[in-house]
């Protein structure tokens, strides 16, 4: 399988049937692993990196989970292909900028990707749409155990899996969920949530990893510590934090609707109008508008099926995906025109919102 056919194959993120979930868009778990007796990628010489790449690739093709996968060296990828993979959360920005001797193996439905010679020899990642921490953990645990049959991991009984950076030591596990939290953003409560979540040992970030850009009201919540706790405890702790954030978001939605339903519906209605009729849309603005329409779906103003369209557009409105669809590089100005054109045609077929004002004193169920 080639990278270009992979990009055009339906993926877990863009075409998931389980895109039914309000609030949690996707779940990811990654494990950091290194080979014993070999320098970490950042300190290794080119020949040593090449050896590790070779060893890891050999082990990966034998794993059942990686049957029918794409197996490429990073330097074989074009800049556009790398950007698309970053936008799909399949590789990190760090890997896309790395030297010779780095690679990635991605399975066909794009639920599993393994980066080789990123910060660690192996960064194994499993991704699932919606909130599926347990399933993601089972899948990644199985793949990790299969790889361990062939690879000698660097491991210490006291410190666990040894990683290039001591912050990943122990389990090497980072579990995260991508959450859509528009009501907490509109209500100005995000800062409070971030602080509370930090105190529980979890980290909140804007959509694409680092930075605090909250475009589309999408946030990534993940565990901060990796040592001193078993994997299932980390996951259980994250799960309970996620559930409490979901509750806060639902409460915030209820309060917004109680306080001023007209204002909320106005935002959603305008977003729909611009997406259907706009001609210049930056990626940030598009994300924010799509986010409002998604909120509209959750509130019952649009049919449930729209959610899957929005989730696909969250990804397809990104610069790399736009240029791929256009089959050529575009300047930022051209991209904004093209993005608006794409969104206009998608929204031409999406039914108009149908808002129901809550009866006084009755509570609104955001879960539909």
């Amino acid at each position, binding site marked *: 399988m080639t990278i270009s056919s992979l990009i055009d194959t339906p993926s877990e993120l863009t075409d998931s049937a389980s895109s039914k979930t309000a609030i949690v868009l996707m779940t990811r778990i990654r494990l950091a692993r290194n080979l014993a007796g070999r320098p970490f990628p950042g300190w290794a010489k080119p020949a040593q990196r090449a050896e590790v790449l070779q060893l890891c690739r050999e082990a990966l093709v034998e794993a059942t989970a990686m049957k029918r996968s794409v197996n490429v060296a990073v330097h074989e990828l074009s800049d556009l292909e790398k950007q698309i993979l970053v936008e799909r959360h399949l590789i990190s920005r760090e890997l896309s900028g790395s030297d010779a001797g780095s690679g990635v193996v991605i399975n066909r439905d794009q639920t599993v990707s393994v980066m080789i010679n990123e910060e660690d020899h192996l960064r194994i990642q499993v991704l699932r749409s919606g909130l599926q921490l347990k399933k993601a953990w089972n899948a990644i645990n199985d793949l990790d155990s299969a790889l*361990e049959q062939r690879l000698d991991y660097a491991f210490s009984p006291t410190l666990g899996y040894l990683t290039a950076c001591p912050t990943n030591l122990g389990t090497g596990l980072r579990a995260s969920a991508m959450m859509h939290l528009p009501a907490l953003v509109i209500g100005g409560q995000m800062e409070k949530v971030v602080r509370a979540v930090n105190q529980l040992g979890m980290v909140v970030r804007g959509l694409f990893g680092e930075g605090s850009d909250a475009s589309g009201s999408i946030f990534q919540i993940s565990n901060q510590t990796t*040592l001193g706790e078993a994997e299932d405890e980390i996951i259980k702790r994250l799960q309970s934090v996620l559930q409490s954030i979901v509750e806060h978001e639902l409460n915030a939605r209820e309060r917004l609707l109680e306080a001023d339903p007209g204002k909320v519906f106005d935002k959603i209605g305008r977003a729909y109008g611009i997406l259907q009729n706009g001609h210049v849309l930056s990626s940030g603005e598009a994300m924010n508008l799509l986010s409002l329409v998604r909120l509209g779906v959750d509130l019952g103003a649009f049919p449930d099926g729209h959610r899957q369209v929005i989730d696909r557009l969250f990804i397809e409105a990104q610069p790399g995906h736009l240029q791929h669809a256009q089959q050529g590089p575009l300047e930022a100005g051209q991209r904004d025109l093209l993005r608006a054109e794409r969104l206009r045609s998608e929204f031409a077929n999406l039914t108009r919102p149908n808002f129901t004002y809550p009866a006084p004193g009755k509570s609104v169920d955001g879960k539909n």
Partner: protein
Amino acid sequence: MAKTLTCNFCSQPATVHLTKIVANKVHNVDLCEDCAQAKGVTNPGGFSLGDLLLEASLKGEASSGGGGVRCEQCGFTQADFKKHGRFGCPACYDTFAALLEPMLDGMHKGTRHAGKVPRAALERKSLYDRLTKLELDLTDAIKSERYEEAARFRDEINQVKQAFTPKDSA
């Protein structure tokens, strides 16, 4: 480190002395007036003693000449760690254990691994270690013409080698 009361960060006389006890060990940081101000020590809650200890120990090591400890496996030094914030190879965790200990304390939930263990890989390693030892024993036995023992070692080697044959992953 010398026990003169000079600042851990520059060479002025130290007037501020901080103590932290981690795992029953006392760690000291001595600072001059200027550095105490610069590190935010005078501002309660505005600094982390853990970070300061790490910084001071890195500083002390770097200025003590000779480059400090160096990882025998990969040549990584403490100065490299200070620069990159990453280690050079898995063996660095042994080499720089003393440096790491106070860091881990504030960085993680605990300081001991409580999760998954790579059983297959560890078993393979212990088999490999056993094989290496048996092969040495065998050579010794043959050299000193203890042929009965040699035959026994050879049998054991064959057994260990059989256990080595990789099982196909599920």
